[in-house]
């Protein structure tokens, strides 16, 4: 059972809850990989993806997760909605809420927007990425991928490499992995490391080699190329040289260490094409697992909602 109505971040999700989500996702993965991708878990349920930022995989992943479980999936984007006419977030959220939505999945460029939405709607809200804060379902699918390979997350050494300052993927992974007993090291250029990151109970370094050495999992983060223009790093070329995941660097990790990336990838910047093509790369597997984890979450969040008179499945 999840304690809260919503999933807003892994910062406020307990280890027990994460365990349960990952275990449920295992069952869901069986469905995805079978020839009959249809279960009744979301029958009679309605979800809507509310995206104020572009996304292909996350949005599609949620919509497919819903459809595989027989739910109704709808979507709105900031560009097609009345948002462009100046409607406030709360007004949009309430409008969608009273259309009978059970789960709203939100992506927004501003930190805390899903929290604001969650306070104003009866529906469950899943944060699909808010500003530079969290992307909890990405953190969950990453942990699922590690668990699938190693049998668990506890005791793993996970290196997270790149733009940790602006990465919601990094933040969700840091919260999730530390709760689940993994040891985390974050590496990147000092201009892209936020202050006091080590106070989250992790190691922090500006030397990628030091982070990768001996790691069980090496996770690259997407770097937005516009950050170069703001002076956060001098050139893409230099970024790749000192902070990119190259074959030479990956060779320093434990043998058969997993290589992960949340996508979309800037090939030859944060990760080389050779590393992406290597057997250790789990980037495709992550995408499949994303659907499984989102199925698990949608199921768990709609399973029991006594305060709104929901049906128990």
């Amino acid at each position: 059972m999840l304690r809260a109505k919503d999933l807003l971040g892994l910062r406020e999700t307990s280890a027990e809850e994460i365990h349960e989500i990952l275990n449920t996702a295992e069952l869901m993965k069986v469905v995805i990989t079978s020839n009959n991708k249809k279960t009744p878990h979301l029958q009679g349920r309605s979800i809507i993806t509310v995206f104020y930022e572009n996304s292909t995989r996350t949005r599609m992943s949620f919509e497919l997760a819903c459809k595989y479980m027989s739910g109704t999936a709808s979507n709105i984007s900031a560009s097609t909605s009345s948002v462009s006419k100046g409607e406030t977030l709360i007004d949009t959220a309430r409008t969608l809420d009273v259309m009978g939505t059970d789960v709203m999945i939100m992506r927004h460029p501003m930190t805390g927007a899903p929290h604001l939405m969650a306070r104003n709607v009866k529906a469950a809200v899943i944060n699909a990425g808010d500003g530079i804060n969290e992307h909890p379902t990405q953190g969950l699918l990453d942990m699922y991928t590690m668990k699938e390979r190693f049998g668990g997350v506890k005791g793993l050494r996970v290196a997270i490499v790149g733009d940790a300052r602006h990465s919601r993927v990094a933040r969700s992974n840091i919260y999730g992995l530390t709760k689940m007993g993994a040891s985390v090291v974050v590496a990147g250029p000092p201009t892209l490391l936020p202050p006091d990151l080590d106070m989250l109970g992790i190691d922090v370094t500006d030397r990628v080699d030091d982070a990768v050495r001996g790691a069980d999992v090496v996770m690259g983060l997407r770097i937005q190329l516009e950050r170069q223009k703001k002076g956060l790093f001098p050139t893409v070329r230099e970024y790749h040289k000192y902070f990119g995941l190259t074959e030479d660097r990956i060779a320093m990790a434990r043998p058969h260490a997993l290589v992960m990336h949340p996508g979309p990838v800037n090939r030859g910047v944060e990760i080389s094409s050779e590393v992406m093509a290597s057997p250790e790369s789990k980037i495709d597997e992550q995408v499949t697992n994303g659907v499984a984890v989102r199925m698990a979450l949608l199921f768990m969040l709609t399973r029991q909602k006594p305060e709104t008179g929901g049906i128990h499945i």
Partner: protein
Amino acid sequence: MKENKFLIKGGHVVTPEGIKDCGVLVENGKISALAANIEPEGARVINAEGMYVSPGLVDIHCHLREPGYEEKEDIASGTAAAARGGFTSICCMANTNPVNDNAVVTEFIKKKAAMAGPVHVYPIAAITKGLEGEELTEAGELSESGAVGLSDDGRCVKNAQIMRLALCYAKRFGIRIISHPEDMDLVNGGLMNEGYWSTVLGMPGITRAAEESMIARDCLLAEIENTGVHIAHVSTAGGAEIIRAAKKRGVAVTCETTPHYIYATDEWVKTYDTFTKVNPPLRTENDRHAIIEALLDGTIDCIATDHAPHHTDDKNVEYAIAANGISGFETAFAICWTVLVKGGLMTPEELFAKMTSEAANILNLDAGVIGEGRTADIAIISPDEKWTVNPSKFASRGHNSPFGGHELTGVVKCAIAGGEIAHGGDWACG
């Protein structure tokens, strides 16, 4: 209530010579006598047994929003809120619409204030036209029409040469420049103090250097021009330290802090409550202690509210686009009293000085002192009474307070401005 003669009896009266247990006789808007046993004929008696009778509080930094933003506040609601908070003299910033960058707007504010009630309103005009940071306003004429200071508050004068010229020119007219220290390049889109909590919460941070570098710049410019400058809303340990060092060198710099930097920290942002969004941002516990320390050693001269009322619509949005500011008049005194006096850090006299005479001195206001012959501006304060903040009951139109539900000690029972009761008439007559 208009009374031309009344006696405040039985209170601890806060005077420049210390706290005296005596009566205060008010006649025709002035304090006519301070003595232990006054028994005047025909005077209404206000029983202030066990209370502090303070000079009416003086706030040298607030926003009354009129003209232009009356949905947030107007001069009538703002002065009513001030009176409830014990303030009888307030200085309102120039970021109205139109901006108070000319004598016409200054005179309009004064006229509206005179119609609104007895609280004394002193406009602060802009340093530059339209707050654009480019052309100087007419400091001479503004001063003559009643502006008591010049500030582009809300915006920093980015161009150091313009700031230098403003300091140099204003000196001729004896009007003080108030600096809003904020380097927008360093702010870089940040929304809260940069540090542990911004990292935890995934919020773009604002480095303390954004404030401190501009404090340092303006101290240097004032020093070079051999003039004074007042620094608004100091919020960081480093900012206080720069001012401490400048004062030691003999620079005529003064500064203020606000109740929220004394009471709240960046940890409060953790629910993404937009009522915690204020500029400069709430800082760390370490900064909070350093600000209190700087108040105690005299580095920080006074406490101002930076009362910044907003409409619900300005705050009920994503944190990133929510307006900055706290509606502060009605909690300012109780916060300071609770934290500083009840917390054992300051004596009552010290706090009253920081909220009255020392504030008035910075802008040469004739306010903040109880004495025979002085204007009867008085606040009567119940020192041990506890109350719970309920922003929906504010007299201010701005209910944007992060202190809702907090229990504070110290109640302003009555405020008298120019001999007229501005707040607490029922209590005073009952």
